[in-house]
């Protein structure tokens, strides 16, 4: 049995995973990163538009600060997020971006003087202040009060990931590539690493560690059309689920991005609309102002996606052989702007659609994009139920996004969570000796060996590719943008059947080394379980919140549903997860539930909401001399690690 020991094992080599590894190493702990692929190819690289941090350097960002970012994030989440975490996040994001700047990200900068921009379809001249010249600039994104999204052209994720991986290389952090974690090792409620399959040799290796961090990204590939990379299959989430101890949070919270190209589902960044692009229907008519007169194309993602779908249902979509779509018009931005700030978008249009977006409209449709749900963690990033298991980034339900994530908050989360959770991982390594029974390691190793041997020996059975396609279709058709009880119940039943069939997979290519069919056979049963968590959670949640939109329950129901869904899968022979709920405590909220300001507010309020609103007012009145930091501390004290507690400086404002 091959065993590799380390202090801090990180599963996933994207931005979040690398940042946790860097934090571990900085604190003097041995660390290893496992990755399916070379780290620089992780899905983080595909984030185009930018990272939200309230630097407030560009003129349209003036007046921005942590509090404004916090309010946008909480509203965006439809009050489903953990406000402690959202607070930690917004306070740390400016530091994260400045650190990345020191590590080499060539953030686009403010240029003092006049420049022309497109706002609400009109050319407008804005004047950047000379004293801000050379500071990190930002662009407009959906659902934000200020221009807060910092960027490098539309290759933001790429430059961030390259800087992060280069930092990891500088520090000598080993990345074990082409390795897949297939099970977690745990004993008495404590996690001790993972059983890992070498995707080239097929060898199983036990990576034994004090702390294990899962940073494997989202589960978008549960759907047949997704903007996600093909590796975003949720396997990290699934191995946590399969412990029967760790819980997954809010798996039904799945985001659809308004503008992926048709039919292949590749993303065109929100920056297209942020920079002034418009959505048009089959008549060339700009329809968003009719639905959302205030924010128009820059309403929150879940809202825009629903409005687009509604509009297509009215027969206003552009018919095509792949079904209806709408147009994204960026022609009004002009060639110079597109070739500088939206060049990936231009390349994608040229290669995949054969069009020049400077001259022609882009065919788009809302498409699965982001997983708000994931491994439920405390604010420290640790699983509340399985000690020593941490999670960060999209894989986690750390829960700063609740039921809808704002554009630009995802790459921001990866690096901020990496910083914060990384510190708690290091604290954990400091406080806990590695005490694991070798027979436990052996037990998990044998279990995984047997699963693979069974697969290789079975003569007849199910085709894993086929099962996956069926699952993806169920999710696409019945657990999509608009949901209803009937479809969801059907999806749950159909997934139960698939879960049984997945126990009888047989291979045509029966070798244990490098074998894509075997990889699929190992993953697909895990994916079906995850899909069931999404569908079942969605069926049970009889309200609409953020991206979870029930046609049969259109109101947000704080009275009954201001709570987080928790799923576990304790019984391996079961076809359904066990579901429980964790209440969000209104009386502790810095920002009590209110209206997001889209459409008609039909919220059914929580009995505590009014009390909390009054309480917040009282606290503010009782402390007339307190500045915003002191008020925040009174309303919402958060466990930010000491080294990230400092106030953030802004141009023209200092540390106020």
């Amino acid at each position: 049995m091959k065993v590799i020991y380390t202090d801090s094992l990180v599963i996933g080599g994207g931005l979040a995973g690398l940042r946790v590894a860097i934090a571990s190493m900085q604190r003097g702990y041995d660390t290893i990163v496992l990755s399916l692929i070379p780290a620089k190819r992780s899905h983080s690289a595909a984030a185009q538009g930018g990272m939200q941090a309230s630097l407030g350097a560009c003129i349209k960002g003036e007046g921005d600060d942590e509090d404004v970012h916090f309010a946008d994030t909480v509203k965006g989440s439809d009050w489903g997020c953990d406000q402690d975490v959202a607070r930690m996040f917004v306070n740390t994001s400016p530091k994260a971006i400045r650190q990345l700047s020191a590590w080499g990200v060539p953030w686009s900068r403010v240029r003092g003087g006049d420049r022309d921009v497109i706002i609400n379809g009109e050319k407008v001249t804005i004047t950047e202040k000379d004293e801000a010249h050379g500071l990190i600039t930002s662009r407009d994104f959906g659902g934000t009060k200020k221009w807060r999204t910092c960027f490098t052209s539309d290759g933001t994720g790429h430059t961030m990931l390259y800087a992060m991986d280069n930092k990891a290389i500088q520090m000598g952090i080993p990345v074990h590539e082409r390795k897949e974690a297939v099970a977690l090792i745990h004993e008495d409620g404590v996690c001790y690493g993972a059983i890992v399959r070498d995707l080239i040799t097929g060898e199983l290796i036990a990576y034994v560690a004090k702390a294990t961090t899962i940073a494997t990204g989202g589960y978008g590939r549960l759907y047949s059309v997704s903007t996600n990379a093909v590796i975003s299959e949720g396997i990290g989430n699934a191995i946590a689920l399969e412990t029967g101890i760790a819980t997954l949070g809010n798996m039904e919270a799945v985001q659809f991005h308004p503008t992926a190209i048709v039919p292949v589902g590749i993303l065109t960044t929100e920056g297209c609309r942020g920079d002034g692009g418009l959505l048009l229907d089959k008549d060339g008519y700009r329809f968003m102002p009719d639905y959302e007169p205030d924010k128009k194309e820059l309403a929150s993602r879940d809202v825009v996606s629903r409005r687009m779908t509604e509009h297509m249902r009215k027969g206003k979509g552009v018919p095509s052989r792949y079904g209806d779509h709408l147009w994204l018009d960026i022609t009004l931005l002009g060639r110079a702007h597109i070739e500088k700030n939206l060049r990936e978008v231009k390349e994608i249009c040229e290669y995949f659609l054969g069009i020049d977006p400077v001259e022609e409209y882009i065919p788009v449709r809302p498409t699965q994009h982001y997983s708000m749900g994931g491994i439920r963690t405390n604010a420290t990033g640790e699983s509340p139920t399985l000690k020593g298991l941490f999670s960060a980034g999209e894989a986690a339900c750390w829960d700063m996004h609740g039921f809808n994530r704002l554009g630009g908050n995802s790459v921001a989360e990866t690096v901020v969570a990496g910083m914060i959770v990384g510190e708690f991982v290091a604290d954990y390594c400091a406080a806990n000796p590695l005490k694991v029974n070798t027979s436990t390691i052996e037990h998990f190793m044998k279990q995984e060996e047997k699963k693979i041997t069974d697969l290789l020996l079975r003569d007849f059975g199910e085709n894993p590719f086929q099962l996956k396609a069926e699952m993806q279709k169920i999710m696409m058709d019945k657990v999509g943008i608009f949901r209803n009880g009937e479809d969801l119940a059907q999806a749950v039943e159909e997934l139960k059947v698939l879960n049984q069939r997945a126990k009888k997979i047989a291979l045509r290519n029966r070798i244990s080394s490098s074998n894509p069919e075997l990889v699929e056979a190992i993953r697909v049963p895990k994916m079906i379980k995850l899909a069931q968590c999404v569908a079942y959670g969605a069926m049970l949640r009889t309200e609409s919140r953020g991206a979870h939109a029930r046609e049969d329950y259109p109101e947000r129901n704080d009275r009954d549903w201001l709570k987080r869904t928790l799923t576990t899968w304790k019984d391996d022979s079961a076809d359904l997860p066990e579901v429980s709920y964790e209440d969000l405590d209104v009386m502790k909220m810095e920002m009590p539930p209110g209206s997001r300001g889209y459409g008609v507010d039909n919220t059914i309020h929580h009995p505590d909401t009014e009390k909390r609103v009054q309480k917040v007012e009282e606290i503010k009145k009782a402390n007339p001399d307190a500045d915003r930091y002191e008020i925040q501390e009174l309303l919402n004290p958060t466990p930010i690690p000491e080294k990230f507690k400092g106030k953030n400086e802004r141009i023209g404002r200092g540390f106020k």
Partner: protein
Amino acid sequence: MSEQERILKFQVFRYNPQKKGDKPRMVTYEVTEAPGMTIFIALNEIREQQDPSLQFDFVCRAGICGSCAMVVNGQPTLACRTLTSNFEDGEIKLLPLPGFELIGDLSVNTGKFMRAMSERVESWIHDKDADKVDYDRLEERMDPDVADEIYELERCVECGCCVSACATKRMRPDFLSAVGFIRLARYALDPRDKRSDDEFYEVLGDDDGVFGCMTLLGCEDYCPKDLPHQTQIAYLRRKMVMVR
């Protein structure tokens, strides 16, 4: 659908070094073309419907991550964004990228090569004071044009097309190649990197470095991101000549 469907003929290099006794060979697969079909879509269809053992690498499938470079009808390129409709006769021959360790079939180990390259050119900001920066304070300013210029050179996705298109690399196994040169040029341009010209010379100044280049410019011709390799190699050479 009115137009006639085409049958595409894929000739694919097959060899699995993990499998005892396996021999390199070309295998032909037929696929019915669909509108907008890319090599990514076609290869997945072959794997799912005809041969589940076929190995290849795709990650983003959007031309962003650089995983899927292979030799398509004699030319290294990103397979994910290559439309099958580009090939008039419907015949498409696929070979793994040369110059890298073969994992199997069309899959090569670019990761190992690129990590070694990054270590060799020390692909990071060299600044003794970088870790003393107070991140609560305003970041160091940078001229907006300089930031844009750095980004131009940072657009490399480490796909390996330049390495496989390079004749010098074929003759000199340790040749740094365009991917390494452009990385160094990126750091040489970056005011945050405090390395001196002498220090850059240590990495670049021999025949495995920028003076080994025979200026055949396969790198420039085949770079999927249209990076200015030619200009950068010339720039580094001029800079190096001034050092000694």
